[in-house]
């Protein structure tokens, strides 16, 4: 099996955020070794205390919490993207591993395939 890293870059209110999670969950359901890296505005997906119903949307929390249950091995969040937005890892809903730019470069080597969504 080729391993797959999904890079999720969209804020939670946008449809592509949910669609990136769907790809990670589908890949994991097929037994593909899979990781997901939240970066750019994608880091907002992880923030605790969101109330999606206020803007007429369904929360992403259930899909996010399904990631470890489905066997998505690496749940990662970009340190630079958090810092740019004044956010801390402690505000994340999931126990995501914070990765710096050098570690992201290593990840790109580690995975067979990368899909940026």
């Amino acid at each position: 099996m080729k391993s797959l890293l999904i890079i999720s870059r969209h804020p939670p209110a946008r449809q592509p955020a949910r669609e990136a999670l769907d790809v990670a969950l589908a890949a994991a359901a097929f037994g593909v070794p899979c990781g997901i890296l939240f970066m750019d505005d994608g880091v907002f997906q992880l923030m605790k205390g969101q109330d999606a119903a206020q803007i007429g949307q369904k929360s992403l929390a259930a899909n996010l919490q399904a990631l470890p249950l489905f066997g998505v091995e690496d749940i990662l969040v970009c340190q630079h993207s958090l810092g740019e937005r004044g956010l801390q890892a402690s505000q994340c809903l999931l126990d995501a591993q914070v990765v710096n730019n050098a570690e992201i470069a290593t990840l790109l080597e580690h995975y067979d395939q990368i899909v940026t969504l």
Partner: protein
Amino acid sequence: MFLLVTSMNFAIALLAGPQDPAARSALEFAKAVLSSGHQISRLFFYRDAVHLASQLGVQPQDESDIAAEWRQFIAEHQLDAVVCIAAALRRGVLDAAEAKRWSRPVANTATPWTLSGLGQWVDALQSADRAVTFGT
């Protein structure tokens, strides 16, 4: 180990819709893959790219019709062109079976496009020698 690869299998995914230049870049890339003697094992249309499978778009006569160009290209080369069914249903792209299932008054997509699940992309990623994604 050195492998001489004369011909490769490509899986190509498009995420952006007809209005995005990525829809044309992906088409030109796909044409170049075939004209270079390689194969395309599957095309996968996700997110707004599902709109390319709609037969209802009408372009002004002096503008290009990227959806029609994709349709011709896929039909001419008999390619496996999968449209993500969940993304398509959300955006109102339905074939006859889905229109019937969801009691919608019209269907707007048909062959050469196939509506199917994300698993088809996962499968294509696994079997391809090269996987390329267009659009962000």
